């Protein structure tokens, strides 16, 4: 087990290395951040040159990547453009936890921006994930137990619709029904913008009300895929001989269903959850945009649109690390759930 973990972690290092180079190439060319810095006034060309030098954007690609990765406090950089490197570098580099500073919000460390948003994003995504797991799995089990019944057919139809819909369609439709139409009909209606009503303040009940529609939109789509996976995994397990044996020797129905059935069917579901959990951190780009939720997805989109490379890099690398972490965790869960799987 210990050796397995060490090996997996060692394998993750070159993977992250490839990812970071790939992204660095892309992010270098997403636009000219300096062009946006003058605000309404166009930047003068000598200012532009000075800014590029100060931000290190004048350096060749490999130098910029090395400074980003391991920092530049071991060398001297040229800030005044006279060709002599005299100012000692300040950056520590990603490997020492320094993701650089935002270009858009001058001087604010990327990590500050990101960690400011993580609580908001998790506030949205964790309830959504709980709803998804609860309804997705339980509906899937019910559908499997009553294969080809009316319930199963209705669930299947809804799942296909859920799997075929862009999230903004369900989001806009749910806003229209639960906010616009309910208001017209004089029913209590749900708020759609932001995390709370600024006039009331950030009270738990306000946040809860503002959560309902985005959580509904996010979970509607994912419940579809969770219940399809659960259904097919359960159907496969239910037809196994050991299920009949367990029933034949007189075990209680529910015990057979959950301990013999669901536990064995849970491997594909664990895979799905393992793929989804790290993405909780990434937030929901589209949903956060529609509902004006100040989370990671919006941070990413806002800073990508204005070519803020360090922030974009920081977010994606953090999420990639989370993805790899949860992949390893998923494999460990496999071994715990299915003793036939040996890690090594």
């Amino acid at each position, binding site marked *: 087990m210990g050796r397995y973990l060490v090996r997996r972690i060692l394998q993750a290092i070159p993977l992250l290395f490839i990812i970071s180079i*790939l992204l660095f190439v892309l992010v270098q060319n*997403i636009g000219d951040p300096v062009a946006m810095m003058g605000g309404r006034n166009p930047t003068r060309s000598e200012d532009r040159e000075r800014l590029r030098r100060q931000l290190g954007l004048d350096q060749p690609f490999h130098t910029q990547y090395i400074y980003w990765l391991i920092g530049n406090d071991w060398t001297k950089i040229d800030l005044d453009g006279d060709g002599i490197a005299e100012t000692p570098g300040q950056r520590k580099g990603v490997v020492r936890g320094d993701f650089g500073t935002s270009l858009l919000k001058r001087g604010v460390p990327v990590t500050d921006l990101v960690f400011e948003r993580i609580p908001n994003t998790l506030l949205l995504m964790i309830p959504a994930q709980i709803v998804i797991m609860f309804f997705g799995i339980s509906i899937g089990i019910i559908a499997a137990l009553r294969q080809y019944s009316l319930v199963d057919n209705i669930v299947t139809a809804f799942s296909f*619709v859920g799997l075929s819909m862009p999230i903004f369609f369900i989001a*806009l439709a749910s806003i*229209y029904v639960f906010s616009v139409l309910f208001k017209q009909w004089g029913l209590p209606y749900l708020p759609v913008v932001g995390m709370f009503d600024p006039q009331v303040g950030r009270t738990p009940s306000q946040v809860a009300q503002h959560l309902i529609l985005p959580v509904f939109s996010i979970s509607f789509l994912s419940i579809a895929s969770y219940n399809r996976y659960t259904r097919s995994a359960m159907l496969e397990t239910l037809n196994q001989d050991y299920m009949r044996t367990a029933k034949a020797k007189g075990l209680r129905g529910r015990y057979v269903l959950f301990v013999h059935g669901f536990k064995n069917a849970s491997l594909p579901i664990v895979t799905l959850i393992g793929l989804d959990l790290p993405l909780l951190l*990434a937030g929901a*780009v*589209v949903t956060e945009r529609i509902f004006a939720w100040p989370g990671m997805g919006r941070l990413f989109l806002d800073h990508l649109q204005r070519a803020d490379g360090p922030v974009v890099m920081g977010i994606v690398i953090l999420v990639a690390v989370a993805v790899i972490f949860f992949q390893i965790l998923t494999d460990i869960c496999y071994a715990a759930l299915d003793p036939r799987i040996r890690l090594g």
Partner: protein
Amino acid sequence: MTIEASRLPLTAEALEAPPLSIGKMAWLRFRRHKMAMIGAVTLILMFVYAFGGSLIYTEAYANRTETGNRLAAPSREHPFGTDVIGRDILARSIYGGQISLVIGVAAVAVMLLVGVTIGALSGYFGGLVDALLMRFTEAVITIPSLFLLLVMAKFFGGQIADIRLLGRSFSGSVVVIVLIIGFTSWTYLARIVRAEFLSLKEDDFILAARATGTPTWEIIFRHILPNTIAPIVVAATIGVAAAIISEAYVSFLGLGVQPPTATWGNMMSGAYNYIEAAPWLWFFPGLLILLTVLSINFVGDGLRDALDPRSRPM
């Protein structure tokens, strides 16, 4: 929804008739899949809508702005209403449908090119080639696909000039979106093709081909690849649906196809500002996306059962 081969008709004539070709057998199984048939018919209707509709409305009409008549509700003159700058939504949904469908198919062509090549090379040659290509594939998988898609949209954005084709002018962003969806969606396909190649290359007929001195590219493309066609067809079909959705996401966020060229995705972009005033802005394009993707998914499901019954139905 699996339909097993054993349920095919086993009458006396059927037993005496010459064996069915793979295509005929697949068609027999596909026809029995009711939802897949409904999906296929709906899909054909969507193509008729998008391409036949251009006989009724001209593209100039779809792009004509009429600021005096903005956000007009559906009426006899504008059955789907008008948008923020007074363009007719019905006409735009026809021309947008053409672009969305073409993007779906073209992006899958790019996906097939990249995915099959990487999967085939990786599976056939193994060793260092395999290790390098698979690490690269893993790296692409590890980056969340919407993030990668959006970063690439910014990367290529504005780098391709507008193109003229068949007397019509298309925004260069159409080509950009085809490339980026193709470049981000191939990983799953590459892994399937690689797995198929790994087992097929050990078969005796490949040994025979090698013994007779068949060139390597011929072994890869003429002997092994045709045997992997079933999962590739299924992945490509589902891929079209995924590509249409991806296009809708990127264009909805304003980083995709740029107006005046319409797509179902960019027609909905900004619609959330008018959700109360003009629900027809997002309803019709959204419904068209839903119907198209739904029917493609049903067809894909039917094809999976028909061509590739071993694989697990989802």
